[in-house]
């Protein structure tokens, strides 16, 4: 037994020949390739935010520049105009097979966040997604959620099945030992795959800097305000910040005490809103 103040070496569970960001990237590439090997009928959900844009970037690397499956953008019609501009430029530049998913009937009924945020998110995001998945028959959905975003998301598996009505059975999740993931599902199910689960917000920005990944301008400070998390214009609030470069954002995040999704309205309405939304099929 060692009880002295000397460095205590222990036998690690894996070899360490790479630096930290390379290690994160390699794990994500492995998961993406496992996902595509198991479920050829797969799609990636791109919100145009920093996490899913990073996932998209790594997907281009994993599949040598040509992503072999369609990309879905769920359009609530309430997104920032910068998001639409970015989407149109880069989907063309990167040759993406883009599907824009909208819940047209809910939009006709003029559903909006002013009445109820929960109802709005559920109709314009979850229901739109359900319809698109059904229409195209996708069995697997790549999502860029991360463990450090929210305590409920920290409970997720990399490969997480959903029932026909999109329910997440969080009380009995699959065994996921070492790099072995769920590779088949029942006909009526679909599977959510989370290749970015092990990244933190800070890791994402360090990687964006290293790889020079293009990002929506909303993340960078203008007039002492910037968005830390983006989505619908109606439900996002900017933070006070002077960080107008990736380097400054990294520095800001290294010292902040404010939670990332603080600018998001939905999390605060009720402590279990996220759990409720997610069990209904929210991302």
């Amino acid at each position: 037994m060692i009880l002295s103040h000397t460095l205590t070496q222990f036998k690690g569970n894996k070899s360490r020949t790479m630096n930290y960001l390379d290690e994160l990237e390699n794990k994500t590439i492995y998961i993406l390739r496992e996902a595509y090997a198991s479920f050829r009928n797969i799609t990636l959900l791109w919100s145009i935010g920093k996490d899913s844009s990073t996932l998209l970037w790594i997907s281009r690397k994993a599949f040598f520049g040509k992503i072999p499956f369609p990309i879905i953008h769920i359009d609530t019609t309430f997104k920032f105009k910068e998001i639409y501009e970015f989407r149109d430029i880069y989907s063309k530049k990167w040759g993406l097979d883009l599907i824009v998913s909208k819940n047209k009937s809910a939009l006709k009924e003029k559903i909006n966040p002013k009445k109820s945020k929960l109802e709005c998110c559920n109709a314009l995001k979850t229901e739109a997604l359900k319809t698109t998945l059904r229409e195209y028959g996708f069995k697997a959905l790549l999502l860029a959620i991360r463990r450090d975003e929210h305590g409920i998301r920290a409970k997720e598996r990399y490969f997480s099945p959903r029932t026909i009505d999109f329910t997440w059975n969080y009380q009995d999740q699959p065994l996921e030992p070492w790099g072995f993931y769920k590779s088949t599902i029942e006909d009526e199910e679909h599977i959510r795959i989370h290749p970015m689960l092990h990244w933190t917000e800070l890791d994402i920005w360090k990687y964006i800097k290293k790889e020079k990944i293009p990002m929506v301008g909303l993340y960078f400070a203008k007039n002492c305000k910037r968005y830390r998390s983006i989505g619908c214009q109606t439900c996002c609030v900017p933070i006070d910040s002077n960080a107008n470069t990736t380097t400054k954002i990294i520095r800001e995040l290294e010292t902040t005490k404010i939670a990332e999704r603080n600018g998001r309205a939905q999390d605060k309405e009720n402590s279990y809103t996220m759990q409720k939304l997610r069990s209904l099929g929210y991302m």
Partner: protein
Amino acid sequence: MQKETIKIAMVGHVDHGKSTLIGRLLIDTDSLPKEKITEIKKLSKELGKEAELAFIVDQLKEEREQAKTIDTTQIFLKIKNNNFVLIDTPGHVELLKNMITGATQADIALLVIDINEGIMEQTKRHLYVLNMVGINSVIVIFNKMDLVDYKKERFNALKSDLLTFLENLNIEPVFIIPVSAKQDVNISKKCYKIAWYKGPSLLEAFGLLKSNTKSIKKSLRFAVQDIYKINNKKIIAGKMLSGILKKNQQVLLLPSNVTVTIKSLNVFGKYNKIKACSGENIGISLNETLPVKRGYILAQKENSPKLSVSFRGNILWLCKEPLKINKTINLRCSTQEVDCIVERIEKRIDSSTLNIIEENAKELRLNEVGLAALKTKKPIVIEKFAFIEELGRFAVGRDHDLIGIGVII
């Protein structure tokens, strides 16, 4: 360059205080946003409790109401310049499946033992399971020292019990630290109440950890994940399991058992890659036109691995429906996947007491370990777990689920 991140699995018997300890660590390291602490206080009040540190990780409604951890979770922690991931795992025996999911992602474990209760059923089971999955270093915490007035005699007595139990396992307790997570003693700072203890506090101990960089000199193994056709060129995508692979190198393709030459190493955006190391996920192309499929393995010609249809291993069974001998199950070893049967269960072992329940058993039940002889339908590439972990460990499944894990001996 950023330092390595050490992943620590929190294990131990139910109610010995794993989730509470994580909550304490997060507060002591100032890792929580203010609104989070307010939220926890408010919620605890609603449930009629004093501020519950465990709620920080026990995020599910059911976990808070039942005051138990249901599923594994991961928390990021930064202490000075060191990064840690704390992997909380459930202590209930019926949730061992979730504990395995957490523990197999860790580098080292932190075992929490209640000083009053001592070594309990899940303490032993978790230690045994850690030993089986190759985690051989454990930081041990004797928690709730406040309940025994921080008495040295109690610490020494439990320490001696623990060391006796560990004699049968290949596990080294790198630190044994008396703490009270609730009273914040010996977590981030020492306390006069426990002046007899001269070792580091838990946070100091974290700062002293350094993982042993494993040699990349190990024999080359590359597992094929998939084949892509990019601009009419065939690229074999796969993972470097061990060793080094170089351009123009001659290697053995298994199970075909033919020698092939590496024409190029492909990484998107990188030209002229000439070398790949253990852990990298790359693409390769070969000089030869040969059929290659997912599950094929490339290996160094010297010291090449065994191609086999039968081997022995320890299986931990994690399904309510028992494992029966001679019934077909699905076996996965790295990217290889094959039908197999368990021919014999030489020993059926209780994973807590380590007692042999039965020899030459016909079945293996939930949470039991079996020393078993397996037979696969097709030959696969295997190694001893102690030599190349990724080809020495496997998962078994049935229908759509994974239901057991194993290591090759």
